[in-house]
């Protein structure tokens, strides 16, 4: 967070947002041009490909809904990262926190559903998902707070461990005896998160948007948020100012990974309804660059995640129609990120020019 904007005037905030919206468009175009060249060398028609991509990712009602559905967990993971990264905590273990949260929620949901009403069910599942995600980062949190141990290592390792552990849970304890493949019981379609406006988009999207906006203001407007930023920018100054580093560190881990667990709860209760052994959507690492590019600003994060989801949902469909392996989507996302990074550079340069 470039942090004079702590005390920015409303006006300059507006220009900032509009500027970042413009810079969001340039990279998309750049990625499409280079991706198009690649498609041509592979003998595919880029216009057809991108036409399909935009159509299915953004324009067709079906695709647009899928894009919105895809955004919900991404927004929640991003909310967590918007807390951890400005506070200088490299939580790279969101995939593990996500999977652990998802597994427990998937096991609990079908057990609870027949006995409680929807509100209680979802509230419980959200709280449990959040709690499990948070608990899964307890070890890195304690290692960091008490022993100063590098959390990049510990959170990454706990992802690998979490993937095995969740598989173990599903195989040994949470399995549905009715199926031969190891997976949890299914949360019936009728018991999933309510959908909005007679579309397929479930309320998880709202949860995600609310979370990201709440985190945005928490980080920028509250004392707690400022403390976290100070810890991130200059931990020695935080100590000097009398901040309690251990509780702060634990709080950062808890909130950040709790959101990853909540993301899983939303996805399981909203879309999947079930978790198999070896389940790992591995979306956490994809959110990381988007959050950085958005400079932790909610509006930009939402815009970037939307663009990303369009590329993913639309790209998969377009790949199939162009008969090209959907590894093309990976390439497109990679290009998008590279151009976003370039765009950021150009933005910085032009704003410097403006100043002098």
């Amino acid at each position: 967070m470039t942090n004079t904007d702590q005390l920015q005037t409303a006006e300059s905030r507006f220009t900032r947002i509009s500027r970042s919206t413009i810079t969001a468009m340039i990279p998309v175009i750049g990625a499409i041009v280079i991706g198009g060249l690649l498609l041509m060398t592979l003998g595919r028609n880029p216009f057809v490909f991108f036409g399909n991509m935009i159509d299915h990712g953004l324009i067709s009602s079906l695709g647009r809904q899928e894009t919105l559905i895809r955004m919900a967990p991404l927004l929640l993971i991003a909310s967590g990262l918007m807390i951890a990264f400005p506070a200088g905590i490299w939580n790279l273990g969101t995939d593990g926190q996500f999977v652990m949260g998802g597994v427990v929620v998937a096991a609990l949901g079908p057990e609870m559903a027949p006995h409680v009403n929807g509100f209680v069910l979802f509230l419980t599942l959200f709280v449990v998902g959040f709690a499990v995600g948070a608990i899964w980062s307890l070890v890195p949190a304690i290692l960091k707070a008490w022993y100063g141990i590098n959390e990049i290592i510990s959170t990454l390792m706990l992802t690998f461990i979490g993937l095995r552990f969740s598989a173990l849970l599903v195989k040994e304890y949470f399995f549905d005896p009715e199926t031969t493949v190891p997976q949890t019981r299914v949360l019936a379609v009728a018991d999933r998160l309510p959908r909005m406006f007679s579309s397929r988009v479930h309320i998880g999207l709202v949860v995600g948007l609310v979370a990201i906006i709440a985190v945005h203001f928490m980080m920028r407007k509250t004392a707690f948020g400022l403390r976290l930023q100070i810890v991130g920018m200059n931990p020695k100054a935080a100590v000097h100012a009398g901040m309690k580093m251990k509780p702060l560190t634990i709080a950062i881990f808890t909130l950040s990974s709790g959101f990853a667990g909540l993301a899983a709860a939303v996805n399981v209760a909203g879309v999947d309804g079930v978790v198999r052994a070896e389940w790992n959507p591995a979306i956490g690492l994809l959110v990381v660059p988007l959050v950085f590019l958005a400079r932790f600003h909610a509006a930009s994060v939402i815009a970037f995640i939307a663009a990303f989801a369009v590329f993913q949902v639309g790209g998969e469909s377009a790949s199939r129609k162009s008969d090209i392996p959907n590894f093309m989507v990976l390439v497109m996302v990679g290009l998008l990120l590279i151009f976003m990074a370039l765009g950021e550079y150009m933005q910085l340069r032009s704003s410097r020019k403006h100043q002098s």
Partner: protein
Amino acid sequence: MNGLFSEIFISSLISGGVIAGIPLIYAGLGEAISERAGVLNVGLEGMMIGGAYGGFVGGLSFNSTWLGLICGALTGMIISLFMVVLCVRLNSNQIVVGIAITLGAEGVTALLHGAIYADTYPRVPTVQQVAIPLLSDIPILGPGLFNHHLSAYLAVIFVLFVSWVLKSTGIGLSIKAAGDQPHALEAAGGDVHRTRTIAVLSTGLLAGFGGAFIVLVGAGLFVPFVTNGKGFIAIVLAMLVRGRVKWIIVAAVLFGMSLSLTTALQLAGIDIPIDLVLMLPFVLIIIVLFVFGRRSYLPAALALPYDREQH
């Protein structure tokens, strides 16, 4: 001894651990150099998979393991140019570019492999193993540790070389300064951009070499995603040794051995769920981290772009 616990079996376990560990030494060493220079290279996985593919194509085209390894190293270096231009020169966010490199390289190599090799799955030339005299005769340990392709021993030489460079040369000092206090480096007449460029290119070279090793010596052929997250493990190992590069050898080989150990445990019929066994290498890292990794040190300017006039 004629049973299953034969010497040849044990040395095969050790040998497997070594071969799994060598690419981690290369890539981890590369990452360590970058990190010391202040560049957190999360594109390591992408540079490895690029190197794996380049090594594969080179190995096949020239029918030579060595030329393959060199092609892999060059491919890794070319990919690292993205990081040089974007992060070192244009001050883009290192995390963003790193992840972009990883995704892009995974995608491109998988596409190319699918378009060119998926019908034939060609295998790379057989490797020439070289037994080190005397050492390879040590009972039990010798054959597993000291009978490998020359490029495996080269890893150790590279590590010693880099360790010496960091400790005893001007560029070594510059690399450390670029990571810890880049402004001081410039004030002393050094060049942060140049230093970081050298560091990142070295990382690409070493990661590419490691990726090529996976294909040419380890797997015997390329399949999409063949590096399988080894780049991330290498990042972790580089951080674990906290800049003391010689320890990368120990860390990487220990990690490789713990993979072999998972096989050994299964064959020994240890009756615990496989998922618990497979957690072992990662739990081991956390334990090592806890026991040896206190007071974790990361270069102060790690992952921060450098701008001379902005303190």
